[in-house]
């Protein structure tokens, strides 16, 4: 694979974030937070989100990892750091995107430093961060 600074990473789409997957994830994580499984609890918050559960942060991050795996292969992600300026809600369509910012071969392994984010058509970037990927 030939990669250059400025290359866009092929996007990865989650067509509809699933409330049922959030419930499974909550059980696996032993996460007691009702934001992930109780729509009424979300509606009661002063955030204007309506009756939609909030996706677990690690799941949004995982969509970006899925994009990176599709691009550079399973196990290629060396580091990923994400911030969460907006929530991802059930039934959202979100698209993981990224761009190569720097390529480093000083360690003997070709590494791409990338800006990565999770985008919603109307609300913009919901998650944003950086990733180091072995090429």
């Amino acid at each position, binding site marked *: 694979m030939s990669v250059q600074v400025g290359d866009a990473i092929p996007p990865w789409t989650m067509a509809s974030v699933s409330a049922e997957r959030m419930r499974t994830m909550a059980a696996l994580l032993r996460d007691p937070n009702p934001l992930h499984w109780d729509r009424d609890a979300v509606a009661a918050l002063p955030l204007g989100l309506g009756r939609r559960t909030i996706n677990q942060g690690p799941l949004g991050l995982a969509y970006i990892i899925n994009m990176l795996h599709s691009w550079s292969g399973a196990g290629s992600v060396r580091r990923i*750091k994400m911030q969460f300026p907006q929530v991802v809600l059930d039934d959202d369509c979100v698209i993981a995107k990224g761009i190569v910012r720097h390529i480093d071969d000083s360690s003997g392994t070709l590494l791409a430093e990338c800006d990565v984010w999770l985008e919603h058509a109307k609300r913009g970037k919901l998650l944003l961060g950086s990733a180091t990927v072995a090429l």
Partner: protein
Amino acid sequence: MSHPIPPAEQIAALVGHRFPGGQYCIEHWENVLLTGCTGTELLPDGMVHPVALFHVPILGSGTSIAEMFALGQAESDLSILIESYDWEMFAPLQEQICYDISAAITAADRRSNDAGNLYDRIQFCFEMHSQGELCARSTITWHYTRNTL
């Protein structure tokens, strides 16, 4: 309803708190369910989806999300905001490997946001080793909001 705010000194004193530590072995069934939740296919050769880097270190170090909320004296489960998750992978995680996991609180302090709302910023660092080699590090930074949500 106004919640009492813990003294800032109690929050700052969390730095250096160590969790018991322990082991965690990721079973095939767990990897199947986790990977399915992310909307993709199982990775090859028993490789675990990196999404495991959130809960495996937490549970394997002998703590829980509920205890992490409680240590920071969270007002409720609804009062926590994520600042960042930082996952470093030095080797792909594998099913059926028992990882040795250690964890500590590495930062804790009181801050206020641009709107003047107080919150406590607490950072947890988890490390996963296999046969003495560092395989992964997960750093979780949460904001414990105070009378905001």
